[in-house]
């Protein structure tokens, strides 16, 4: 293994670790965040940053070739579809009247429902 390969391998490991970290954060956010909007926000991070950086890492590992082309197509699909899905969800929820969550101190002065 020469130096370039070693560096690429190291970058792959780092990118995959970042991806795994974002998946973890997204999952925790899914479970722990208070309302629909913030959960949607957390969930879309998994697909864009998480899966995105894992795929990028895999591309570095593969080098040029048919598999890398497939990975690029897959990344493009992910980066297009996941934010769109998040946008559609949040938009539909907002337009149909779901109120975003506010912290309790914030709502104390107002008419709490």
């Amino acid at each position, binding site marked *: 293994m020469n130096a370039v390969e070693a560096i690429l391998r190291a970058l792959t490991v780092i990118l995959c670790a970042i991806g795994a970290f974002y998946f973890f954060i997204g999952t925790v956010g899914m479970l722990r965040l208070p309302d629909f909007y913030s959960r949607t926000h957390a969930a879309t991070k998994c697909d864009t940053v998480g899966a995105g950086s894992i795929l990028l890492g895999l591309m570095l590992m593969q080098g040029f070739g048919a598999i890398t082309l497939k990975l690029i197509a897959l990344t493009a*699909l992910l980066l*297009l*579809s996941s934010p*769109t899905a998040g*946008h*559609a969800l949040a*938009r*539909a929820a907002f*337009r*149909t*009247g779901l109120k975003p969550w506010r912290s309790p101190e914030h709502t104390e002065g107002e008419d709490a429902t």
Partner: protein
Amino acid sequence: MKRALTVALLVVVAIPLLYAVAQLPQHGSPMTPPYTHISPRYLEKGPEEAGAENIVTDVILNYRGFDTNGEVTVIFTSLAAVCAVLLGSRKGDERPAGEPSSSAVPVSDVVSFVVRLLSPLIAIFAVYVMLFGHISPGGGFQSGAILAALVIVTTVIVGRKQAEALVPVRIRRLLQVAAPLTFFVVGVSGLFLFGDYLAYPKTEGQMWLATAWLIVIGIGIGVGGAAVLASIFWTMGDDS
């Protein structure tokens, strides 16, 4: 009295079932038939016997064709059940028909753009999965799901009227029943040509014929499955 009869009937049914379950080989035991000769046979002889390099396709469409035939019939029956329940319950409904519910949200430009951008690619992918199910992972069921997703996402963007116009009413029934129908046609032609229901061509060196049959069934399952899923979606949309 009625309750006692029910209990008695349940016991009578349960005893043979429990007996049969007790006779089953231990789960995961390497001595069971699937491990001793069935799986190795599929893996070793599948491609040359059944006509597809993808062994999953070999198993579901050839070795276990009967099973899949029943399966597509179940899928079609589920559509019939959904229609029966939803259309039947609507009779007593007093709401005026055809008015969209007030909570409907106008279509987002972002979603609309992305769907328009991706739908040709989704369509190509569905056809690819359908036609190459004998070589690569995929097949009729998967492509049916992809096609149905395409139809559903298109319905969301362009509205139901325009989306439904893509599938004319006259052939819609035919498409919905496409999967069982294809199986029936292929099965019966197997009966006449090769002597058994769902028999495949077995001539040496003419494997492409069996492969062609697999592809035909794959197309039938794909189109039929997509039509069923889309119809269920549309029927449920009637309710809003």
